């Protein structure tokens, strides 16, 4: 008799119950997607026999990981699919586009110095037509605007010295979006941490977490960048600091996918890597941190649980944290995927599926009629803003706005 019957191929735990199929948003939106059970455990056995069994339709997987949340047998369905794509996916029909979408760091570095021009040019109709026709980026999409000053530039110039006045610190992994497009969130983060009595350090070296690289099958580049981040995070953690982020997708990537998909070691930092809201809620609960909020703050908010947030199971900390803010009227939306899945929804061929997947969520948001939607995921933010016109905030920005000056 065997002590257990689970090999390194975790798909063997699959009992073919098909619960994963019932929660897969893509399967419902696109009949040519085989669904997580087939795309994952079933076809993996045949891919082991012959890579020719790789199904082109695996490109439709959103990596939302809802299948993993639902699986009663603990099968890492989305990881199986993602690894199969990294190993077997045929070369893209739009290699240029996929490279542009995937290399967020590189594109940000290119665009930032010309932010004004880029922001003017990108939304122009002829430019969109070219992007749509020649590159396969759907014309109905608008790229997030680039910031003329990167967050890191601002940090080093304006606040790094000031941080030294604190005697305890957290290390911030800001991510690409915050650095190149939306430094305000990072400024809000610094404000909140300082109010909590913590100074902010940055990682010695930070690269894009790689979630977009993996999704676009740039596995080797993702590993190179991950190794830089791992070394920096290990160093910060060894120095006694927690590493905090404001993005659920970056967090999931670095906590889970670095080991599960890229086979890299995460033991040196994993338990000390957290989302800012979870960390903050814990500190408030333990009495370490006390925040003072404005008395006149009023905001009607709807909380959207990003898919990776659901997979982490951490939405409850954010929700509880927001409930501590006086004047917040909070609706928690039903947990549905917004459909953009990072770079997926920008691709012309995916646009209709992306919107179909998101339609349930959009309807819920409109019905709840908030001043702003709150979520930890930047790409959910783009999708919800583009599809509903309602602004989307990171919960840290809500906390920052509600803090007493």
């Amino acid at each position: 008799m065997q002590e257990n019957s689970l090999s390194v191929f975790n798909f063997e735990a699959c009992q073919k119950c098909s619960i994963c199929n019932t929660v897969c948003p893509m399967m419902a939106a696109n009949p040519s997607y085989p669904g997580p059970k087939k795309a994952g455990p079933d076809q993996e056995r045949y891919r082991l026999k012959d890579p020719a069994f790789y199904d082109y339709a695996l490109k439709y997987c959103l990596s939302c990981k809802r299948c993993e949340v639902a699986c009663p047998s603990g099968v890492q369905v989305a990881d199986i699919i993602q690894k199969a794509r990294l190993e077997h996916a045929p070369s893209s029909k739009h290699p240029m586009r996929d490279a542009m979408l995937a290399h967020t760091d590189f594109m940000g570095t290119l665009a930032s110095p010309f932010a004004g021009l880029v922001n003017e040019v990108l939304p122009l109709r002829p430019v969109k037509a070219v992007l749509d026709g020649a590159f396969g980026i759907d014309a109905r999409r608008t790229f997030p605007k680039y910031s003329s000053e990167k967050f890191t530039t601002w940090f080093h110039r304006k606040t790094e010295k000031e941080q030294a006045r604190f005697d305890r610190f957290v290390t911030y992994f800001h991510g690409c979006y915050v650095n190149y497009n939306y430094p305000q969130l990072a400024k809000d983060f610094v404000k909140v941490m300082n109010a909590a009595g913590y100074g902010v350090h940055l990682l010695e070296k930070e690269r894009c977490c790689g979630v977009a690289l993996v999704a676009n099958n740039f596995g080797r580049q993702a590993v190179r960048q991950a190794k830089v981040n791992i070394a920096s995070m290990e160093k910060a953690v060894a120095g006694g600091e927690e590493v905090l982020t404001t993005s659920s997708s970056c967090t999931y990537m670095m906590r889970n996918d670095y080991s599960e998909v890229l086979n890299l070691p995460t033991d040196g930092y994993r338990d000390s890597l957290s989302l800012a809201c979870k960390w903050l809620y814990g500190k408030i609960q333990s009495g370490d941190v006390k925040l003072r909020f404005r008395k006149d703050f009023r905001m009607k908010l709807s909380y959207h649980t990003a898919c990776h947030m659901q997979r982490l199971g951490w939405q409850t900390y954010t929700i509880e944290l927001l409930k501590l803010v006086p004047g917040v009227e909070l609706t928690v939306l039903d947990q549905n995927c917004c459909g953009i899945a990072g770079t997926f929804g920008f691709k012309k061929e995916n646009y209709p599926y992306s919107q179909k997947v998101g339609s349930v969520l959009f309807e819920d948001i409109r019905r709840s009629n908030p001043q702003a939607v709150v979520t930890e995921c930047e790409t959910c933010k783009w999708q919800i803003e583009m599809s509903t016109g309602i602004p989307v905030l990171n919960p840290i920005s809500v906390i920052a706005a509600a803090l007493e000056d």
Partner: protein
Amino acid sequence: MIKEYDVIIVGGGITGACTARDCALRGLKTLLIEREDLCDGASGRNHGLLHSGARYAVNDPEGARECIRENLILKKIASNCVEATGGLFISLPEDGLDWQAKFVTKCREAGIDARILDPEKVKREVPAVNQSIIGAVSVPDASVDPFRLTDANALDAVRHGADILKFCSVEDFVRESGRVVGVRVRNAGGTQEIRGREVVLAAGIWAARLAEKAGVHISMLPSKGSLLVFGHRVADIVINRCRKPSNADIIVPDDAVSVLGTTSDKVPFEDCDDMRVTAAEVEVLLKEGVQLVPSLAHTRIIRAYAGVRPLVSEGGDGRSASRGIVLLDHETRDGVPGLITITGGKLTTARLMAEMTADLVCSKLGVNAKCRTAQLPLTGSETAERKVSKVIDHKLGNKAQEGTLAAVGRHGSESLKMDFKGPGAELVCECEQVTRAEIAYSIKEFGVRNLQDLRRHTRIGMGTCQGSHCVRRAAEILAEELGCPDRAGEFLNDYLQERWKGMTPVLWGETLREAEFMRNRYGRKDYEI
């Protein structure tokens, strides 16, 4: 049916099917009779290993030479049944390298391309292999699908004019002045006599009992071999132990699973119709199997099964029993003209056994016709690759194409006869990727009676879940296609019993969970243990 056949072959295993094909190709009026479905006996209960002959090189050089010759022939003529995986013979520290030296010399003498490999390189390239190996030799072993090979031979026989009677048992021989001139058979329709100028027994271990009815004694020893099916491919290559052949020292990548075996135990004749794997056998298999591939210690076992080797002991005692080919001309041996027995041998050498048999039949009948089975490709493997690629358009990501690649893998160019459009596109068995199109084709071409027959021709329900996901749907489709919608429940229950039989000896871990899921899904039943 015709009035008198040139040759009647009894036994629809691989030997019988090959013999029927050979005889039909030589222009003989041929009948193949099988009491159950094709491939129901030992032919469907083995390793699925196409021997290179290396395993026999040291102890049985003649067998080794036969194997390598047939190995090369089958790779050519049966491309849709054979996967040229290659094989390894690994030496562990306790084995030493003495056997390896002798083994390689003997392989080369037999014409087997055996090459000594750098064990470090093997460890890197086949990460599943026991990492403490001190030596490794590559040989041209391969994986062969015995169901497919039997089907392909039978189909080709039929297409060259042979008749096949399945689900029909031979009760006795028809004799005229000492000569066997036909058989008396029984099937659902009753009994009848069928006349044949020569009768060939190709019934494996069951030949002994049949021969007695003609007053002929063949001393046979039923030898049980048990095997375990692991849920996925642990390695893409056949792995053998480089030592004196022993228990559980071969693991074969068959389709999407790995098969570990075998044991070897004498069993009484009366057990041969219903082989069950014992806990002790499972233990031996596992204990030895982990020496080849350590991860087998925690790889899901989806099933255990056993077959019976028809060992012939012409010398009398067990030790001298031969695993070689035994062709008995009962006219010269026992004074019973009209009767021939072909037995012993291996799946790998079945074509050669058929050739030897057909040669003898032709000489008896005074027919001068050469054997062509070594040259003519088998049904399904006519290297129609361009045509086949039309079927595989899975790159379109089109749902209608699901399962077509698996069907092509199983049936080769025969898959061109399947209609994957419309209702045919439905994927019924998701583990083994069997579409309704493949089911419809198999029902038509192989005349299946129930789900167990259907399984042999399609692999339906042979994957990880052992049918718990698809059996109800499969039963409904089968009943519908056969025009007996009220029998779906019966098909389902029979099939579950058979699956349960194979799962019982390995009922722990994930397979136990699956069995519980199955039981709760289809209702509690008393299973025959």
